[in-house]
């Protein structure tokens, strides 16, 4: 057992949360590289406007070449492999159903271009660093997919004093950030320091859940070995408690500041960046290296050989399945992302995009087949909601067709962590009721729709 850098208190957010089996079976598996025969690069993998394709059929591309331009609000797209453009067409997309994408056939023979180090990288101005991050097409890799340069460009009047690097990885099964912290420790620390400089942070805190003590120890050692980094990042260990890795909860745990309804971490002087994002920023600033790969945890009972894979962005999930030995016979659900906040996929011919942190394969017996029942007012959902919302009420009102009346119960604040639905003994799809209420509020139209078939009163 590695020694913990912070032995005494395990930090945590103040209210709610759930403790569950973490199922991190891939935690000890080193990251493996996988090069597919073909990649499909959607032009929209982020929040913001779609990039414009600047290559056409039969063009030869090298890894790292800009193929989809978009610099102001969105994020550009780069070739993730060497090869030839097969087509630019509409393809199935993991979150948008369908979107334009550039399909590249891999040339496995070609050698990857090297990204030259910029000798001046330590002395770049904040603006220059931001431009490099924007040009590299980096988005929040923890799943949010918000363009990182936009998040780092603070609105006037906002001051950040604390930069938080999110290594909590609180979703069960996922281990990609854990592996990155172990295998790319130095890059991570340097990335954290660079981002700290961009936003003028006075302190940098790397937050890690206590089920990854080895990563925490490794980081602490790396930081101790650098003598020159200013400010020195702190490594802090948090309780393993879902949703520790959500921005608001992590700020609460590490900076001891509560973010009120409708506000962002920056309103309390904090900024949160994911581990993988920090590493990508470092590569972008020092080597001008664009975002081309990502680590994906392939796990769950339904896949034959679980792995942590480093794949070029655009790798088809079907190719990953083949590479991991195929699905077991009883596998019946594939989830992109974590088991709590990820979404089930309807097809496997969709690519891994920048925000895909995991691919989980669930078998028959892991699926909740039962119809949901009436709320028995057990109060569990109220106990676990980290924001103090009232999912029970939102679900009851929405069920009765009164979605527009749910505002006082906090519908708008819910970030859909799923803790409430996880604990509900009546198996009510609370998060989905909340989504319905949210969209009803957004459209200001009354809805009265059944969510999943079921319920004795349905």
């Amino acid at each position, binding site marked *: 057992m590695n020694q913990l850098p912070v032995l005494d208190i395990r930090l945590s957010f103040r209210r709610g949360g759930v403790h*569950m089996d973490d199922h991190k079976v891939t935690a000890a598996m080193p990251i493996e590289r996988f090069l597919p025969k073909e990649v499909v690069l959607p032009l929209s993998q982020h929040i913001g406007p779609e990039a414009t394709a600047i290559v056409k059929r039969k063009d030869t591309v090298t890894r790292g070449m800009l193929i989809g331009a978009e610099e102001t609000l969105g994020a550009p797209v780069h070739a993730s492999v060497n090869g030839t453009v097969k087509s630019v067409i509409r393809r199935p997309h993991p979150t948008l159903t369908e979107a334009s994408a550039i399909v590249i056939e891999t040339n496995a023979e070609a050698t990857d271009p090297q990204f030259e180090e910029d000798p001046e990288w330590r002395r770049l101005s904040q603006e220059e660093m931001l431009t490099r991050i924007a040009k590299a097409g980096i988005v929040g890799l923890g799943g949010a997919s918000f363009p990182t340069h936009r998040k780092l460009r603070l609105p006037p009047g906002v001051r950040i004093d604390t930069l938080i690097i999110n290594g909590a990885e609180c979703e069960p099964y996922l281990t990609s950030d854990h592996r990155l912290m172990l295998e790319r420790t130095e890059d991570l620390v340097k990335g954290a320091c660079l981002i700290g400089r961009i936003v003028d942070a006075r302190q940098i805190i790397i937050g890690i859940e206590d089920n990854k003590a080895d990563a925490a120890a490794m980081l602490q050692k790396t930081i101790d070995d650098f003598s020159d980094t200013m400010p020195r990042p702190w490594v802090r260990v948090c309780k393993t408690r879902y949703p520790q890795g959500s921005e608001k909860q992590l700020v609460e745990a590490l900076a001891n500041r509560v*973010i*009120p*309804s*409708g506000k962002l971490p920056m309103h309390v002087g904090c900024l949160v960046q994911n581990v993988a994002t920090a590493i990508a920023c470092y590569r972008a600033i020092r080597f001008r290296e664009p975002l081309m790969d990502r680590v994906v945890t392939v796990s769950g009972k339904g896949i034959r050989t679980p792995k942590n894979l480093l794949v070029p962005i655009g790798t088809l999930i*079907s190719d990953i*399945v083949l590479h991991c030995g*195929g*699905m077991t016979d009883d*596998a*019946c*659900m*594939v*989830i992109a992302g974590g*088991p*709590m*906040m*990820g*979404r*089930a*996929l*309807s097809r*496997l011919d969709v690519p891994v995009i920048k925000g895909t942190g995991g691919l*989980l394969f*669930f078998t028959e017996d*892991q*699926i*909740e087949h*039962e*119809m949901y*029942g*009436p709320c*028995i*007012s*057990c*109060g569990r959902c*109220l106990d676990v*909601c980290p*924001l*103090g*919302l*009232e999912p*029970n009420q939102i679900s009851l009102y929405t069920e009765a067709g009164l979605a527009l009346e749910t505002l006082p119960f*906090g519908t708008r604040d819910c970030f*859909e962590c*799923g803790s409430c*639905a*996880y*604990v*509900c*003994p*009546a*198996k009510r799809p609370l*998060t*989905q009721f909340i*989504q319905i209420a949210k969209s009803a509020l957004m459209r200001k139209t009354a809805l009265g729709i059944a*969510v*999943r078939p079921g319920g*004795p*009163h349905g």
Partner: protein
Amino acid sequence: MGERRLLLQPGPHLHDTLSTREIMWWVSASIAPAFLFSLWVFGLQVLWLIISGIAGALAGEYLVNKGRGQHPTLKDGSAVLTGLLLVGTLSPGLPLWMPAIGSFAGIIFAKMLFGGLGFNVFNPALVGRAFLMACFPLSMTTTWIAPRTAGIPDAVTQATPLALVKLQGIEHAFTTLGVNASYYTKLFLGLRSGSIGEISVLLILLGAFVLVWKKIIKLTIPLSVIAGLLAVSFFSGIPLFHLLTGGLWFGAFYMATDYVTAPLMPRGQIIFGFCIGVLTGVIRIYGGYPEGICYAILILNTLTPALNHWFRPVRPTWEGAPS
């Protein structure tokens, strides 16, 4: 890879294993020792009463399900639990058909007509008991069986300790009962006359311990109930006696903690529980019934929606800056 049908479901894709049905079974199972003890103390009669109570509850629920064209809801276990809890409040000498009538009425009037599980205002088991009390007051109050201390249970009727106090006054009753330190031990262990579920405080505590350990109930409500009763019974001069008699523990741990009819938030729960305790004491000492907890809980059930409305989770708000 062959065509495989992939399932689509909204997240979260993980669920806690505890389900409504499991909760109902845990509650039922946790009270089983107390019932088995009654079976031993009062004889086989108790078993038939239990079966009768459960059958009535199931019949009531099934009929309404059928009549309203609903999915059958018997499997959620809540009807069985209602039947069981109702029998827990009855005296062991009742005619066998009576619990069936009570639970049938309780389920139909208190639960199904309100919309079924989750929508009831009143605790169905207690409504069942109140119904029986109104219809058959004589059987309900005079069919107590003396506990067997050794050998075959005595068929001789013996009033409950609280009823004796009501009838004969404290001093006289205490002489009749032979109240001393060992009498309190008997009350605690359950070697006395009383309702089927209530007699053994020890076994009720054991069941409650299981429920708390399984995180099915919290102690907020039961402790508040006990505190409330203690507060009032100090005026009567016999707090310990009040504490150990009259179904207090059964009511506090198994009736007042019913999810549906109790408030959600801790502060609401404290008020709810404390008021139940106080009201129980007031009914016992100043009211017309020897026992009070059944009515106290039913009355406070009506306050639950208001308590839920007054005490809601507090969310942090932004101080200063405009939103």
